[in-house]
């Protein structure tokens, strides 16, 4: 039973606190009315039994209504319940007043209770009409009574009258007391919840703020965590409501102000990442998220925002971006290294390898200029051998070279066998500035080292300042090392090719030699042995005339044989017996050769013209005299029946390799074009009637070629011949 009452009396939980309070008060009032009704009936029965019937009817009505009200509260119809309660109270008072004789009836005071109850339990909307209704009902009762339309008032004994009054006072007191307690509870609850929110706000690990909704966005509140975030206290923000604008990072200021203006205009949720400067000047990245808070009518009240510290996140992001950039660079470097390596192993021609590598490095890293220098034989100069771009072409054309000394990056790098970096060539290192490369801002010079010997250097230049790091040097040096290897390989390969070529030439010559020995040496033998047989016959027959003639033939053949053997010996010695090269004045060589040919020259009455302006050359003095001697001697031999024979020796410009060109010119019989090559071949004689073994020009060519020069002939039959040859300049 108690359980049932408990369950019956348990008030369900309404959504809002106010409803809960009203429900509790309504139910309290209802229960109070039931109890009071019982007490009222008992009191009336005791004091005025004549009126007990009325009392019972009243009490019964109230009890029934109260039960109904409690039931309604239970079913969540709070408004209906409170309205019903107030209405039944009003109805009971009205009926009671009318039946008890109007305004003089003690129950009439009950309207005050109705008004009080309505203001406590009924909705605001009902309480005023109910109060007004009570007043109007009271006035109506007064008017009706004045007209005498009401029954004669019941005569209440004074004690009853007092009792009824007391009863109403008690009810009023109780209602008011309950109300006061509920108000207290509500206020405390509100207070508690505000304190909770505040605690919550000020303990979460983020900074909260409230800004005004106008364009100025004044700070109205900021949570104390701001001290942890920025080092400034919340008072700094509250004293100067525009303080926050003063600590925004200058680079983010405009962006933020613009976003703020936009946000004020459209009131949409705000979200932005920007930097603030903390009190200790640290840069703090924050994520600022704010919502516009509006009242029930939708009017903007304030901006409620949160600052979250995302500095670490940003740092991580930046680190990641840095990492990606470094990775990208390394990837490109690796890729270039691979391509350089491929080029190094596949291109064996130095003239193709160096430009290919320079171009590869320059384009892959987007450098301004890449140049490769090779050290020349005397190790005095570094000669530009490959270079990128238009300016590179220019420099290659002009034969750009640098002395191997500390006055240039390249010179320094080769001399010291070390990489050298200049991060701002333009300003700091004026002495390294190259007028061909005006945009260079950083430069790196890397030595090309093979087997411990510097064979050259590579310069890489960038239009950006500080374009190279230590890591770059390492990577680029790896490429340089690889290239040094490749250069060596290419050199060896070229050397091998020229060796093979030389061997082939020598092989051909040897074949020619064997052939010649079997033919040209045999030839005089055939003559000697053949005529020896006849000599014997003539000796027997005593034909001395023929004997002498044939003996002359034999002697001639023997001489020829000896000359041939001498020349062969000479030819075979050229390759081996060559004196070390020295600086020689070509005029001396010419003079010596002429001296040796004095006899034949005078005999043939040839006019010899020679220059007095010869360059110094680099070669074997004695051998070069042989060259001139042979050529002049040839000129004498093939002069023919020229009326005014002349031979001219001189020099005429230089060839593509900057070697001076010399010539020996005669106005003799000349040579037909088809023989221009053949004449230099071993034992190739054009005219058997002229003395000679056919070795002279072969000898000349061998000597010239050993010196690195070339020899060729320009001639037409009947118009003389000019032999040209080149020799290295000193």
């Amino acid at each position, binding site marked *: 039973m108690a359980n049932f009452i408990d369950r019956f009396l348990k008030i369900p939980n309404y959504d809002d606190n106010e409803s809960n309070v009203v429900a509790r008060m309504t139910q309290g009032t209802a229960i109070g009315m039931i109890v009071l009704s019982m007490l009222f009936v008992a009191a009336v029965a005791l004091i005025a039994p004549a009126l007990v019937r009325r009392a019972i009817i009243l009490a019964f009505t109230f009890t029934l209504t109260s039960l109904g009200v409690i039931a309604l509260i239970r079913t969540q119809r709070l408004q209906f319940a409170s309205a019903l309660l107030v209405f039944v109270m009003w109805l009971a008072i009205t009926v009671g007043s009318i039946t008890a004789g109007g305004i003089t009836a003690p129950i009439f005071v009950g309207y005050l209770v109705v008004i009080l109850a309505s203001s406590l339990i009924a909705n605001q909307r009902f309480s005023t009409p109910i109060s007004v209704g009570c007043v109007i009902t009271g006035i109506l009762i007064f008017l009706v009574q004045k007209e005498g339309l009401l029954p004669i008032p019941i005569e209440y004994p004074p004690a009853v009258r007092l009792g009824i009054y007391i009863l109403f006072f008690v009810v009023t007191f109780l209602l008011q007391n309950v109300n006061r307690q509920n108000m207290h509870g509500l206020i405390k609850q509100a207070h508690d919840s505000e304190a909770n929110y505040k605690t919550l706000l000020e303990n979460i690990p983020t900074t909260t703020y409230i800004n005004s909704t106008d364009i100025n966005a004044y700070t109205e509140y900021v949570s104390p965590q701001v001290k942890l975030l920025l080092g400034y206290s919340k008072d700094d923000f509250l004293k100067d409501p525009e303080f926050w604008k003063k600590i925004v990072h200058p680079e983010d200021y405009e962006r933020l102000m613009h976003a703020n203006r936009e946000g004020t205009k459209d009131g949409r949720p705000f979200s932005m990442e920007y930097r603030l400067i903390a009190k200790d000047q640290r840069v703090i990245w924050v994520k600022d998220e704010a919502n516009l808070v509006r009242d029930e009518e939708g009017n903007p009240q304030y901006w409620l925002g949160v600052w979250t510290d995302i500095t670490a996140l940003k740092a991580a992001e930046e680190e990641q971006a840095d990492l990606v950039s470094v990775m990208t660079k390394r990837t490109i470097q690796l890729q270039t290294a691979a391509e350089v390596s491929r080029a190094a192993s596949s291109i064996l021609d130095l003239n193709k390898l160096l430009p290919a590598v320079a171009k590869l490095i320059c384009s892959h890293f987007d450098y301004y200029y890449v140049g490769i220098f090779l050290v020349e034989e005397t190790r005095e100069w570094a000669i530009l051998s490959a270079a990128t771009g238009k300016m590179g072409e220019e420099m290659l054309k002009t034969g750009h070279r640098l002395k191997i000394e500390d006055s240039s990056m390249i010179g320094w790098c080769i001399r010291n066998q070390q990489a050298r970096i200049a991060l701002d060539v333009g300003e700091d290192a004026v002495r390294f500035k190259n007028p061909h490369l005006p945009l260079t801002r950083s430069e790196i010079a890397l030595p090309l080292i093979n087997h411990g010997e510097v064979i050259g250097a590579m310069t890489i230049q960038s239009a950006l300042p500080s374009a190279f790091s230590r890591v770059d040097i390492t990577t680029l040096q790896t490429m340089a090392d690889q290239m040094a290897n490749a250069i060596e390989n290419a050199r060896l390969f070229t050397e091998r090719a020229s060796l093979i070529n030389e061997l082939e030439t020598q092989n051909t010559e040897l074949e020619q030699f*064997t052939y010649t020995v*079997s*033919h040209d040496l*045999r030839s005089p033998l055939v003559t000697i*042995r*053949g*005529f020896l*047989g006849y000599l014997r016959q003539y000796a027997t027959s005593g034909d001395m005339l023929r004997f002498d003639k044939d003996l002359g033939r034999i002697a001639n053949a023997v001489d020829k044989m000896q000359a041939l053997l001498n020349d062969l010996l000479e030819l075979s010695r050229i390759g081996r017996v060559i004196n070390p090269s020295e600086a020689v004045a070509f005029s001396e060589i010419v003079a010596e050769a002429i001296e040796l040919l004095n006899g034949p020259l005078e005999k043939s009455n040839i006019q010899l013209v020679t220059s007095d302006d010869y360059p110094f050359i680099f070669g074997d003095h004695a051998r070069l005299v042989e060259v001139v001697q042979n050529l002049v001697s040839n000129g004498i031999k093939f002069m023919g029946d020229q009326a005014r024979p002349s031979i001219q020796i001189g020099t005429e410009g230089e060839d593509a390799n900057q070697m001076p060109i010399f010539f020996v010119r005669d106005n003799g019989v000349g040579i037909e074009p088809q023989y221009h090559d053949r004449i230099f071949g071993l034992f190739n004689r054009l005219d058997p*009637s002229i003395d000679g073994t056919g070795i002279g020009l072969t000898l000349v060519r061998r000597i010239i070629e050993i010196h690195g020069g070339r020899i060729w002939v320009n001639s037409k039959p009947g118009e003389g011949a000019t032999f040209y040859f080149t020799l290295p300049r000193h």
Partner: protein
Amino acid sequence: MDGEPILVMLVEDNVDHAELVIRTLEEHRVANKVRHFLDGQSALDFLFRRGEYNGQATIRPHVILLDLRLPRVDGIDVLKAIKEDDELKSIPVVVLTTSEAEKDVARAYYNHANSYLVKPVGFEEFKKLMDDLGFYWLSWNTHPDIKE
């Protein structure tokens, strides 16, 4: 040449060798019928009736004795010119040289030489060869288109 038919055409740059050949051929009584040329060019001019032989009557020798290493036009080139000419290619060409080189032998036969003889070193051998050569080409051998 004084109306006599030329039986042997000798192309030889070495005058001593030419003398040896002519002397040994004397015994076959053809010496006056030997015509000697010092280089390939003059031999070809003679055969093709060019240059100084322009307009002269056609003379076909019974045999051509050809040295290989000759000034101006080489022996092999003379051989080629003869063997590429429809009228001349039937004339037997005997290469008579000091070279024993395989290369020369091969090139000579490749260019349709009819015989390849190496000049022997030694009087008796040389004489024997020329005797045999004279007998073979001038007596035993039947020549095409002989104009007597």
